[in-house]
């Protein structure tokens, strides 16, 4: 038994990692819907979900159950095979893309093995290209869903989606080239490590990040990425004021949920990419000599946990009075554990910063949805082709000239 285990250790570790990541990503997606509804509600001076569980925290569970038990009718005249394939394709590709993201610099040493955070090996040389390959295929989910539904609104949504994705994929890819030129690699780990060195003014920490020399590239990348994930203000494929619900009009029950999960997973992947490519990934914004910043996770977690306990104790419902203090105690214990065990604290520094940056980008995603009106179709096309693409090409040319000049300078 143990012989089989040690012979297939890599395989078993990978399977465990896949199951764990799947569980985490699906949970994050579920609570992202809660976060989005709550945040958009507060932006619009509403309360958002607050009936199911304390602060509406059980709303995602209720929604999930509803999706599972709803009737799932198949409309007449659909292309059966493609109709069933489309949501599967969308979900599978979105979940695959997150497997390429590395989540931490240091491997976890367990059972005498080095287990890296993230499913893909850290020396995956085509990291960013593999991600783009998966996003390039992602359009089929939406386009085929629109086509196979036998509904004119769906078809319009699918057509819009494919046109939009073709247009913005160019700007998305071109805007990353500057980062690749600076790092000299497609490898995501190497791209992050290249941002550790002295940046502008020779300062370390936040000043080494790619966002400063690549500010144009970052703006292009983020806008194009929002368009790629079909989110507001680029959500024309599902514009509810024009197309009922666009490409997923004819989808109900769990097939609809699959599109939903795919969309939120893509949002998470894009947030990971933004942090990794332009904001130093798991690197701390402070110089390495400031060791006291390593207690920042605890400084955030401890008061937050105590607040959750206090909030739970004064909650009206019995359920809230039980659930919230338990969650709060868990958070407080986590914060205390980081202080008490320095080794653990060192290990979680990288993941902590990466997750914080991802959270900031997810917040911006929702913020933009709550703030900006939707583009008109011709505006969308003109914006992509006449503004984003030229700017990203100019960015590539300028970056390569600067790098060339630096190389000439240092050669002298």
């Amino acid at each position: 038994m143990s012989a089989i285990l040690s012979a297939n250790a890599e395989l078993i570790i990978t399977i465990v990692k896949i199951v764990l990541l799947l569980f985490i990503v699906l949970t994050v997606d579920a609570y992202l819907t809660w976060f989005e509804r709550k945040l958009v509600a507060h932006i619009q001076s509403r309360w958002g979900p607050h009936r199911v569980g304390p602060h509406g925290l059980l709303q995602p569970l209720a929604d999930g159950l509803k999706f599972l038990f709803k009737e799932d009718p198949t409309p007449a005249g659909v292309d059966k095979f493609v109709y069933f394939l489309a949501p599967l394709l969308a979900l599978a590709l979105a979940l695959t893309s997150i497997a390429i993201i590395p989540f931490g610099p240091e491997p976890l040493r367990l059972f005498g093995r080095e287990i890296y955070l993230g499913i893909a090996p850290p020396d995956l040389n085509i990291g960013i290209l593999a991600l783009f390959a998966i996003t390039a295929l992602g359009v089929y989910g939406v386009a085929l869903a629109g086509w196979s539904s036998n509904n004119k609104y769906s078809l319009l949504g699918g057509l819009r989606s494919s046109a939009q994705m073709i247009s913005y994929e160019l700007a998305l890819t071109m805007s990353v080239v500057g980062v690749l030129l600076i790092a000299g690699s497609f490898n995501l780990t190497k791209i992050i490590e290249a941002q550790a060195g002295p940046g502008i003014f020779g300062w370390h920490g936040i000043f080494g990040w790619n966002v400063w020399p690549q500010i144009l590239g970052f703006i292009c990348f983020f806008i194009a990425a929002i368009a790629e994930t079909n989110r507001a203000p680029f959500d024309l494929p599902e514009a509810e004021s024009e197309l009922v619900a666009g490409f997923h009009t004819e989808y109900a029950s769990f097939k609809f949920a699959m599109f939903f999960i795919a969309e939120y997973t893509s949002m998470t992947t894009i947030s990971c990419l933004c942090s990794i490519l332009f904001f130093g990934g798991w690197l701390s914004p402070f110089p390495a000599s400031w060791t006291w910043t390593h207690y920042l996770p605890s400084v955030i977690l401890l008061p937050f946990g105590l607040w959750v306990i206090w909030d739970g104790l004064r909650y009206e419902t019995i359920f809230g009075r039980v659930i919230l203090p338990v969650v709060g105690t868990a958070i407080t214990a986590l914060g205390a554990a980081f202080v008490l065990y320095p080794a653990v604290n060192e290990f979680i520094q990288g993941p902590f910063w990466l997750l914080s940056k991802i959270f900031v980008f997810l917040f911006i995603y929702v913020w933009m949805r709550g703030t900006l009106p939707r583009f008109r179709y011709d505006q969308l096309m003109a914006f992509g082709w006449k503004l984003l693409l030229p700017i990203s090409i100019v960015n590539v040319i300028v970056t390569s000239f600067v790098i060339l000049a630096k190389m000439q300078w240092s050669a002298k």
Partner: protein
Amino acid sequence: MTASLVVFFALAGLAVIGAVSLILQKHPIHSALSLIVVMVALAGLYLLLGAEFVAAVQIIVYGGAIMVLFVFVIMLLNAGVEEHTNISRLAGPPGLLLVVALAGFITATIVRTTAGVQGSSQTGAMASTSGISNMLFRDFVYPFELTSFLILVAVMGATVLAQREKP
């Protein structure tokens, strides 16, 4: 049988099934989907040979950009199921002859160069990103630039042709 051989036969089988399905499907969208399967299976084969960059580009360019355009145009024109005509009587015998000739040619090539095929999985350094870029931008820079110029001309020609109807 080693693991890589199993993966090879799985991917090769997928590519062949996709190619056959591409011809046999009646609806254009289904044919396009079969072609995507072929492209992705080929990318997997490149990956198996250690050509990571070529595999990724195969999916991005062929699987992504070009096939999305195919699907987009099929959807835009709303092309329906193909009509079947009686097969041309002339096409039969020459077609059969061509099939036999092609099969014979492929078999002959495989039989003659089996040794070369065995060793071809050692192309890692050549197929790496820097190896490809050295070839493109140093050894073959003039043919490469000429090709891109040709493509530019084609793009401009397409734009002019598309705008001809306007006053």
